[in-house]
């Protein structure tokens, strides 16, 4: 009992320190907020006289919905229904799935209780690592897809990659910023 109490107190203390640690982070400067992540294809047309920006209906609808979600005047229901809530719900159900799987395993194989606990912990760790990878955007960085753009433009070929759509204040022209790296160099352009 005493050991449990001290263990619980230690866990609470660690959690409390995390709250203080987050609380100590300086407020970031306001930056343009990405509304939507989509795909972009750059191609050339020798017969065209004007540059054209072609947006699919689906992307436009998503953009409109994302803009609606980003609205400061959004309703309470809209705030609750934000996609981060969906991620949270997915996590809650995954937690329930692992918990119930552990209960089922322990019930159906009572003499292998230890193995069941290990299996559940391993599964939880695997999902945790997966979540961290997703949150950290693990995988090849986006700029790699744009590296061949100059050559593709010369050759008249298409180049596709991911793009974050941002909305900034003002009435400037639309601007496309591509993440190009100098070949052989380490710095950004």
């Amino acid at each position, binding site marked *: 009992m005493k050991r449990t109490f001290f263990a619980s107190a230690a866990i609470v203390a660690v959690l409390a320190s995390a709250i203080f640690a987050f609380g100590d982070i300086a407020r970031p400067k306001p930056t343009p907020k990405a509304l939507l992540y989509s795909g972009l294809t750059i191609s050339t047309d020798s017969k065209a006289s004007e540059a054209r920006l072609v947006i*699919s209906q*689906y992307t436009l*609808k998503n953009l*409109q*919905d*994302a803009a*609606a*979600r980003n609205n400061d005047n959004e309703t309470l*229901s*809209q705030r609750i*229904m934000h*996609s981060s*809530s*969906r*991620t949270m*719900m*997915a*996590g*809650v*159900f*995954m937690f*329930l*799935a*692992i918990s*119930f*799987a552990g*209960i*089922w395993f322990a*019930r*159906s194989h009572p003499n292998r209780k230890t193995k069941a606990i290990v299996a559940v912990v391993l599964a939880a760790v695997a999902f945790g690592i997966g979540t961290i990878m997703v949150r950290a955007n693990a995988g090849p960085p986006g700029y790699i897809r744009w590296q061949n753009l100059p050559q593709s433009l010369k050759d008249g070929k298409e180049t596709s990659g991911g793009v974050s759509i941002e909305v900034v204040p003002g009435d400037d022209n639309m601007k496309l910023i591509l993440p190009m790296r100098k070949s052989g160099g380490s710095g950004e352009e």
Partner: protein
Amino acid sequence: MDTFDLSIAPSPLVALPHGRAADARRETRVSPRIFAATVISAGLISAALASWLPLQMSIVTVFLFAGPHNWFEARYFLMRLPARFGRSRNFFMLAFGGIGVLTAAYISLPALYYANIWSGANWPNAIAIWNTAMLLWIGALVVMRGKQKANRDWFWVLPVIFVLCSLNWAAPELFSLAFVYVHPLIALWFFDRHLRRTKPEWLRIYQRCLMFLPLLAAAMLWQLSRTQPLADDNGLFWRITQHAGAELLPNVSSHMLVSMHVFLEMLHYGVWIFALPLIGASGAIWQVKSIPLAKHSRGFPKLMAAILLCGLFAVALLWFGFSVNYTLTRDIYFTIAMAHVLAEAPFLLRMI
């Protein structure tokens, strides 16, 4: 008037006493080889037609078979409904309650959307909530059914249900799309369960034929994956491609998606309208007395006959609607038809 014997067909095996049914089984004329050839031929023809003319076949099959297959399903469900619920009362209460509430909620979703009561931004969340309710309802039915079966522990279904809930919240629209593609396959499971009872000599060959299905699907995917997208330049074609997931999977050929969906739908309709009645799973089609609830001394023969007649009227109404405004009727049909999709869950569980 208590009897509603409208029979124009000979009584199938299900309507016969057990001993006579067994005799009739032994007298089966069709050999398993012919049965297998029929199943494979039907699959091949369906795949070829769905691949060749996906939009046209989608229009024609839904027009011809959507209503009748619902009628056959309703007939089948009435056939499987016990005259007295007994210890299954709670199971059926939950089943019917769930079907009613979930169908009403499903119908109200587009109604609320088109009435501008909520914005499209919340649409995925609404879908996710509905899917979660459906999955939890199925989970509850499985647990209740598992308790009725001795020596069976179906607790493992709960973690599976929660995993599905999690996937649903991660991508609600894709989850719903997966449901669109999985639902037609449930009919094949029903057919499997009925073959066990009525034609066990066909069961093994049928299960071997089922192994042919993924190969057929893979061949279709391989053949159609690089085809040009279908022309969805009118409202109807756009709805069909959207239903098959073209909007959600923009990098996948809409030709392939629609073909696969139509192929699965054709199998689904084929099982409910032709295969199951042919092995006697739906009872003598016009014979109301083959339904336990009508046959029982304290049953409801008039009500059963009225339900079947109303069903026929609904089928005729659907055909009329398709003739007048196909696009609108199709939209309405696929929304209301969610009831029959949901109804398959409890009746399939009763078969397992």
